[in-house]
């Protein structure tokens, strides 16, 4: 099962799925960017639809197609952004050009590796039906870039365990995962600079950030229990802030959670 088959099967299970998804999309994303209220909103209709069709542990092939889908999304986002005159200020062009190069390379690698089994590129709408001035406002572009990169980091991390018996694929996934994290760090710092917000740093503090679904989830970014240990209670960390402890560990997202985030940007499969 790949994620598009999943979406197909969702439609078969629930004929109203697409309408409900559209409703959820509007409700979630029409909220003003940066609003903390909006950060808490999750497209619950989509989440509940997906959970009906979803459950089993994915195969390596399914994991790679899932990764390819996310890379398609990122690649097209930067292709358009980098080609849009007047969007990216001169001082940041080199950064986004480099990110775009990497996403293009990731798509090429995964599509080549999957060959005939590769899913097709979906049709994307980065404005989420007009909710986002994705390519006309640099602040919005950077906000979406940050959301996609942080989601990418969490998405790859969530699949590492599913590749444990395929060591080479696991290593490739890790090698892409850390590149997404390098991207996320600089994009977050650029967002912090252009919004003059010192609390938006290269690392994720607590579960702060927009959209909220990118930073929360089954295991929230504010999680501090690691390997069964409550980290703030560990000896030697008495002088370390709770916020710093949350920053020190990135957390995974499930496939379903990632689909919730990506869904509003996917027009058709």
């Amino acid at each position, binding site marked *: 099962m790949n994620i598009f088959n999943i979406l197909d099967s969702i439609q078969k299970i629930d004929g109203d799925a697409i309408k409900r998804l559209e409703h959820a999309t509007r409700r979630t994303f029409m909220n003003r960017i940066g609003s903390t209220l909006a950060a808490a909103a999750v497209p619950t209709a989509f989440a509940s639809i997906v959970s009906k069709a979803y459950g089993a542990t994915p195969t390596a092939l399914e994991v790679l197609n899932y990764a390819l889908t996310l890379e398609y999304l990122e690649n097209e986002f930067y292709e358009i952004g980098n080609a849009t005159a007047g969007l990216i200020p001169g001082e940041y062009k080199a950064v986004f050009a480099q990110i775009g190069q990497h996403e293009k390379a990731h798509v090429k690698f995964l599509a080549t590796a999957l060959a005939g089994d590769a899913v097709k590129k979906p049709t994307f709408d980065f404005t989420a039906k007009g909710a986002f001035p994705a390519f006309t406002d640099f602040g919005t572009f950077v906000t979406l870039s940050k959301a996609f990169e942080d989601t990418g980091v969490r998405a790859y991390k969530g699949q590492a365990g599913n590749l444990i018996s395929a060591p080479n694929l*696991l290593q490739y996934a*890790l090698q892409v995962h850390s590149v997404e994290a390098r991207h996320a760090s600089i994009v977050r710092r650029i967002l912090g600079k252009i919004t003059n917000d010192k609390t938006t740093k290269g690392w994720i503090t607590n579960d702060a950030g927009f959209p909220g679904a990118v930073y929360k989830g089954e295991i929230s970014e504010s999680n501090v229990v690691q390997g069964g240990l409550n980290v703030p209670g560990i000896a030697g960390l008495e002088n370390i802030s709770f916020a710093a402890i949350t920053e020190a560990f990135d957390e995974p997202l499930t496939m379903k959670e990632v689909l919730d985030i990506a869904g509003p940007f996917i027009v058709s499969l």
Partner: protein
Amino acid sequence: MKQTLSDNLVSSDSQILAKVNRRYFLRSAGVAAATGAFILGACTDHDLEGDKIVELGAGDVGILNYAYALEQLEAAFYIQVLTTPYVGITAEEKAILTDIRDHEIVHRQFFKAALQSAAIKDLTPNFSSINFSDRASVLGAAKLFEDTGVQAYNGAGKFIKDAGYLLLAGKIVSVEARHASAIRDLLMPNTAFFAGDDVVTTSDGFDGALPPPVILPSVQPFVVNKIGYSQLPV
């Protein structure tokens, strides 16, 4: 029942404990208590320490000790950076380096607590090649440590047997990559250097992944103790 990381280690790898030689615990050798502050290069014990091999061990415990060794090194480095800030350090640089220091201390103490009695000893760093008053020297070393950390975790992942430990390594490596990106951007602001072609392949967009026998000799010059890794999985 939820098992802790430590429970797993103790139950599955207790034979490793015997290999940790406790006789050579020279805690006085420049290693101060909980926050791990250390006295740079002021040790007559260095020669003594240098003679003792610190064995990382086998299996997942060995890999976790490998990570613990690298985190000890990183934490000690950033503690020194903030104790004696370089000339002309900016507010932004200080904020970033302070955050990174705290993250590395968290990683270090976490591994120490998780490994319990299987943990290797406190290592004595040797930063004599770094000029802590010089920005380029400090940020250059930070770049080296962060990129090396990323490459080390990426290369160690496939040797980890336990999915829980693999996830833990994943949770930490992306934070190291975030650090690497920020440090590199301080060195060459607003360029491609944050994920430069020197560390990320242009063909596939892959970060580095290097095995312990490549990583450890490259960090050995920064540690007084000799680190033994012959039992690590290959």
